[in-house]
């Protein structure tokens, strides 16, 4: 018998695909990592889940965090903008940027986690989905090796940043 609450592995797996803000931010992390090359191509997708867990724990314990929606929208703008402008951030700076935004994304997921039926499977699903979106971003980054590929990936970054600006307006309530 179920509890009627959303939960379980499949529900967690679907969750990051259900919101455009999370989806674009995760893809951007992989895409920017691929843009920056080693070691950030793997450092960013490793930093993100680690800090997402920190955010999720803050969310689970309902530790107040200011403007979560604003932080998430800002992550889409900044990450998309970094790709569009081909920002070659140093390792420490890129890691800090991604780590800070990961806390906001983790917080939003973590707040929902305790009310999910079977939260352990739910968390397994959404961590896996998050990781797969990073991999999708890295795969899109492979376009950089093709002629005019950099133009294509930078254009994707511009589109992501533009959508992010729309999300930012919505989050601010303008």
């Amino acid at each position: 018998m179920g509890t009627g609450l959303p939960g379980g592995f499949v529900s967690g797996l679907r969750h990051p695909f259900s919101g455009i803000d999370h989806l674009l931010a995760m893809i951007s992390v992989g895409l920017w990592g691929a843009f920056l090359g080693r070691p950030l191509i793997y450092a960013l997708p490793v930093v993100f889940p680690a800090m997402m867990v920190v955010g999720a724990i803050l969310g689970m314990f309902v530790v107040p965090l200011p403007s979560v929606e604003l932080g998430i929208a800002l992550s889409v703008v900044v990450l998309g903008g970094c790709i569009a402008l081909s920002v070659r951030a140093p390792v420490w700076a890129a890691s800090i940027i991604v780590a800070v935004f990961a806390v906001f994304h983790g917080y939003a997921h973590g707040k929902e986690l305790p009310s999910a039926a079977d939260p352990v499977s739910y968390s397994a699903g959404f961590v896996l989905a998050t990781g797969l979106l990073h991999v999708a971003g890295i795969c899109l980054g492979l376009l950089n090796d093709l002629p005019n590929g950099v133009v294509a990936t930078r254009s994707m970054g511009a589109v992501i940043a533009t959508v992010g600006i729309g999300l930012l307006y919505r989050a601010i309530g303008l």
Partner: protein
Amino acid sequence: MLPPALLFVALGLALGFAPRRAWLPSVLALLLTLAALTLMHAPPGLANTVFAGCWISVIATAASVHLKRELPLWAAVAFSVNVGVWAAAVVSVSGSRYDLLKALPCVSIFLPASLLVARRASIPVKVVSSWVIAIAALAATLQLLPVTPGYLPDHLE
């Protein structure tokens, strides 16, 4: 089935960084530990302790992929015994021995992992390891919250 599966995946990822000569002793150590301990029953009152040990083991085993050197033989065998102990313990307090059989093939992830490591393409292995660590850390935290942590039946079950 998820806790033993995560233990076996973490062990498989760690073995990907171990020398080939460590594979057989490690897998044998795992199977012998499981065979010896699956017949034992942990007291149900220890469920939270057993799961805490399981999640800590998942994190420690998966984190070993970030070691600078390759995993030595003794460490690979020690990880295998530790994973066997906690996998047997978790199915003893929650789930069935059949879950162990279903989850055991997850260890075979060491084959593709070692291939990638040998080709100096260990990035995907490290990324997957970070996912496993994240899941275990979240699961461990859920134990500290006043919610049904998923491996226990809730009030409707």
